[in-house]
């Protein structure tokens, strides 16, 4: 099951199926070290330790949970940070090169 919440400029997805196999809880530790300590483990799954409506205000988008989970956890976190028009800009460049 995919758990998700918004940040100020993006969205964080946590794959709870992967979380179940995790023994490190590295996302919580990394959020405490680099972020705002807004994650907790609930029934073996990483979830917000704050109200869902507060996530965009409190998450500082340090990106540490994603990177540390990839290295030391189960690679269960994905952070989407859209950049408006960059994808179309790159596609146009590719087409021009072709």
């Amino acid at each position, binding site marked *: 099951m995919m758990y998700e919440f918004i940040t100020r400029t993006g969205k964080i997805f946590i794959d709870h199926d992967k979380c179940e196999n995790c023994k490190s809880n590295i996302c919580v530790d990394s959020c405490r070290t680099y972020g705002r300590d807004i994650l907790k483990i609930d029934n073996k799954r990483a979830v917000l330790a704050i109200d869902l409506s507060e996530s965009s205000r409190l998450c*500082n988008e340090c990106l*540490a949970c994603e990177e540390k989970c990839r290295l030391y956890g189960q690679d269960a976190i994905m*952070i989407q*940070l859209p*950049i408006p028009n960059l994808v179309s800009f790159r596609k146009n460049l590719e087409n021009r090169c072709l």
Partner: protein
Amino acid sequence: MVKLDEYQSKRLIEKAGFLIPNGYIAFTPEDVEEISEKIGAKVVIKAQIMISSRFKEGGIIFANNPIEAKELSKKLFYSEIKRQRIKKVLVEEKIDIDKEYYLGIIINDSYKIRSPVIIFSTEGGVDIEIVSSRNPEKISTMTVDICHGFKQYDAYNLLLDLGIPSHLLRSLGDAICKLYEVFKRYDARIAEINPLVLTKHGKICAVDCRITIDDSSLINHPDVEYDIPRDIDRPTTELEKIAWSIEENDYRGISFFNQMVLEITDEGYVGYHGIGGGGAILGVDALNRHGLKIADYAETSGNPPASKVYRLAKIILSQPGIEGYFLSGFAIANQEQWHHAFGLVKAFREDLKNKRGFPVVIVIAGNKEKESIEILKDGLKDIPIRLEVYGRKHVYDTDFIASRMSLLIEEYRKEIRKR
């Protein structure tokens, strides 16, 4: 700073009561014809580009009637002057000129002055720098005491210094005071009317006008139109607009991106990312000394979140033709540098995983430096790039770092040639 086009600047001074030639903006030759008909007189067609000496460069043409205006404007549209493409022109009635003057206000940044300086010259229509070198006696200047303000009699004194005839004192004095009001109201850094003309009918008219506004103040001026609040002497590029979109509504730290080369056709260009302005320039100098050039000047500082660093890095990497990425943190920063590290790791993992051998040199020093270097090295160890990360030991060693960048690029070129 935001440089406004002539027509935008004229809108601001018109609101302040300046007489400006009757005119409208046109985007096609057909628009030019229609506007010329509406004006019903001889017209001037002026390319709306940000260069000086537009007339000399062919950016200003005169037409006697609407058909001629349409035909002549066809040569202007989508032509280029000093690498700027003409996409819009200002069509205005041609003014019968009796005498041309120059009127300008600038902020003198010198720590001894830090005030607006009013400049008036009896020789208008040419660059003020040329008048200054050839006929300095034709220029009069006055530094404004901002506590005292600028009064009508100050304007008269400025004009009397140049021997302006008494019957023109009032109208020219009014013009100076009005421009000063516009300058103040819009938090301008530069406001210039060149030429300010005396028409054959005895009126004072602003024929050309340029205003540059302090970008920090734009939030107070919703009536000012601009693409992005950056000091750029050319139309904004698509990438610069994208970069501004990530900065526009995110006050956390700063990110800045300026494309130095619009199309890379030569070797030796590096995607450039500085941390902190002064130190970053040292890095540029060092790269230049080693035969490398920067494709862009980008910067993140003021403790930006990793998400902002990530986005800026992706924008820098979107420039086709760059042969390396240089994070130039030639300063001991007090911000936690690991936010830079996480942002870069995410961007490089996404964009460089298929760019085998791509050179990346990172200098990152200051608070949480050791941890940041570890994050970078651990996070990128499985990405097949030429990565070198340096800390405070090399923070003053710009030449060594630039030589490493140069060497890695040389190796990368050889590798590409072999493939």
